[in-house]
């Protein structure tokens, strides 16, 4: 019986329990006089309670038994293999082979006396049945795999038996408990409340998962590469991890990537902030309702366009345009490269316009109306009111908004992957290509790389750097914005 079937049967038991429990509660209710004794819960709640009793403990036990069983078997294979092979790297390969062998045995339906004595014999049988097995397996693997299979069978039987028994017991127990005054509703609601609480911790688990997984791989990376040369290195030249050639050590200097990231973010902010801020001010203070109601959604369209589309736009339209323009200006020599800081920065800036504008719109509208009226009543013009009263009052909020925007710019990936280039160098000419942290994460993790090499692991170190950087900016920005809002509430 597969796990799916067990779950299905448990759920079916739960459904039957629901039905009978609700029926019993209904009969009890109908046979008593409401004036004498008031039933506590509706029959459906008794039904749900029975469903919960039948399914929840049973499925939990099933999960526990399954994971304990696989842990035990894995441990056994590990210790057994270790007696044959000392080298951990080779051992992990052999462990995989034992797993394949036991799968093959299972598929061929071989157990006990049927199991062939040698690996080669098994491999022949498997091949003729269309199952592929590695060539280099050894003979000790076959009895090991067979005995693991036998144990797994026993564990499975125990687990499934226990699960079904528990489901029936839970159903019977809850059925026997049904009384008029049983607080079935409260108990069901408590279970629901717990599951709501569990759902709300998913966000926390995600954060924990991000930090733990990246931290783990980063520590792994720093066991190969000195953290100092990573954080302060000025050369990025990871090389490729050609299998078996341990000699070619790469250089993993963060500085050129960080510079590129910050430079492109700066260019994009220089473009997006004036445009976005002025657009927000104009729409908030000057535009008629009709203009606002058409322009605002149109500008927000920019925020809904996927970043890959911006990237393509940069590569096929804006980049070549800048290149040809510079060639025309300089008489044939194009001093702007097709992939450049400028192109990436401007396209990213376009993407950020609606972000800046909607964030600063929120901030500006939070300035109390009275302040504006006070200034206008003194005879200040509207632009004077905006420049001298509203913007200064909104400044902390705007700073927070800009920090949030900048963190978007730093974490942006697709635009820079397509438009910024892959050359990791320190360079202050905006017309040339630079690369960013995100580009290198993508570069290092696409293609067929060996997972445990520093070339791959460096992506996690980069990711952790990026995460820390943006997290810091976000936390600080949200703090500023909240302080700012409280001031005017």
């Amino acid at each position, binding site marked *: 019986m597969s796990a799916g079937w067990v779950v299905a049967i448990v759920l079916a038991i739960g459904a039957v329990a629901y039905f009978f429990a609700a029926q019993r509660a209904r009969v009890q209710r109908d046979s008593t006089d409401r004036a004498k004794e008031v039933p506590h*819960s*509706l029959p459906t709640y008794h039904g749900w309670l029975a469903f919960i009793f039948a399914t929840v403990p049973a499925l939990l036990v099933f999960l526990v038994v399954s994971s304990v069983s696989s842990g035990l078997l894995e441990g056994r294979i590990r210790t057994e293999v270790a007696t044959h092979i000392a080298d951990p790297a080779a051992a992990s390969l052999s462990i995989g082979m034992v797993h394949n062998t036991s799968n093959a045995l299972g598929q061929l339906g071989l157990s006990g006396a049927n199991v062939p004595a040698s690996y080669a014999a098994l491999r022949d049988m498997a091949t003729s049945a269309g199952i592929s097995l590695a060539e280099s397996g050894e003979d000790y693997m076959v009895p090991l795999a067979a005995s693991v299979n036998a144990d797994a069978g026993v564990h499975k039987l125990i687990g499934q038996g226990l699960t079904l028994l528990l489901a029936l017991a839970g159903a019977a127990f809850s059925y026997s408990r049904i009384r008029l005054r049983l*607080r079935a509703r409260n108990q069901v609601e408590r279970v629901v409340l717990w599951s709501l609480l569990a759902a709300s911790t998913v966000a926390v688990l995600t954060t924990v998962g991000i930090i733990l997984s990246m931290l783990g791989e980063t520590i792994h990376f720093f066991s190969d590469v000195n953290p100092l040369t990573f954080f302060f290195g000025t050369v990025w030249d990871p090389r490729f991890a050609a299998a078996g050639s341990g000699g070619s050590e790469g250089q993993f200097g963060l500085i050129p990537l960080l510079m590129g990231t910050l430079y492109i973010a700066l260019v994009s902010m220089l473009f997006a902030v004036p445009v976005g801020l002025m657009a927000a001010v104009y729409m908030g203070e000057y535009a008629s309702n009709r203009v606002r109601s058409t322009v605002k959604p149109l500008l927000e369209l920019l925020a809904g366009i996927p970043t890959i589309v911006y990237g393509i736009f940069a590569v096929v339209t804006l980049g070549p345009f800048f290149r040809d323009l510079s060639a025309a200006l300089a008489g044939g020599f194009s001093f702007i490269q097709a992939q450049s800081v400028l192109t990436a920065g401007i396209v990213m800036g376009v993407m950020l316009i609606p972000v800046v504008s909607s964030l600063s719109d929120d901030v500006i509208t939070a300035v109390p109306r009275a302040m504006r009226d006070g200034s206008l009543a003194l005879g200040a013009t509207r632009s004077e009111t905006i420049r001298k009263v509203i913007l200064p009052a909104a400044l902390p909020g705007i700073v927070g908004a800009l920090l949030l925007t900048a963190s978007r710019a730093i974490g942006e990936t697709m635009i820079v992957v397509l438009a910024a280039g892959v050359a990791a160098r320190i360079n202050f000419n905006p017309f040339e290509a630079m690369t960013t942290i995100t580009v290198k994460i993508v570069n290092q993790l696409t293609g067929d790389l060996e997972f445990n090499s520093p070339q791959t692991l460096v992506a996690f170190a980069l990711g952790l750097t990026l995460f820390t950087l943006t997290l810091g900016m976000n936390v600080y920005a949200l703090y500023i914005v909240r302080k700012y809002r409280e001031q005017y509430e």
Partner: protein
Amino acid sequence: MSLESAATLAAPVSRPNAPPKMTGENVGVFYGAKQALFDVNLKIEQFNVTSLIGPSGCGKSTFLRSLNRMNDTIDGCRVTGKINLDEDDIYDPSIDVVELRARVGMVFQKPNPFPKSIYENVAYGPKIHGIARNKADLDEIVHSSLRRAGLWNEVKDRLQEPGTGLSGGQQQRLCIARAIATKPEVLLMDEPCSALDPIATAVIEELIDELRENFTIVIVTHSMQQAARVSQKTAFFHLGKLIEEGKTEDIFTNPKNKQTQDYITGRIG
């Protein structure tokens, strides 16, 4: 039936020996560290209308809301002392607050019908409390509740229309119908007429007088005239304390306490 005999029927039902329906002993309410109600001792007589009066912020609504534990829904709110409904201490841990609220219904200041049909509005309470055994039962409860709330003739042809489409006064009577559909023993009303015009108010006041036959009613009101018109007993609250309570006619014609005098003559309030 002559006018006089009608008046005698509506006169206070005095049953000096009948036990009170609800009693509050040394009731105190705290919102966080702030105490909103101090040592209130009040008995609520069965099948009477008790009105709670006093200036804004005097604690009358707080006391009302502690009678069906609606205060529980406010974070940081704590009730001390003891409140009994018949023999049951309603703050006892063994009491299920949901059952309590089915026994002690509530009508709010602003009419708040659910954005559902008129029928669904009234049927919701009986449904969740399992009062109706079948559809016919439920129909009967809905119809009789609407009838008792004096709304039947106005809505009988449009039970499936949304309750939010009624006028303010009708909405409030719908809310009363909804509250009495669960067959509560006590009905709490928190300034039920404050959002209504004088005509709708008069209709509701009349309704309250009729409902007294079957329900014990506690009403919070801003209007002393209303208290005088609808209630048999009146309790005057000031600054979180119960200043004076007694028969309505006594309170209004012959108050013993100086603060009460000041309030009903309009010097505080």
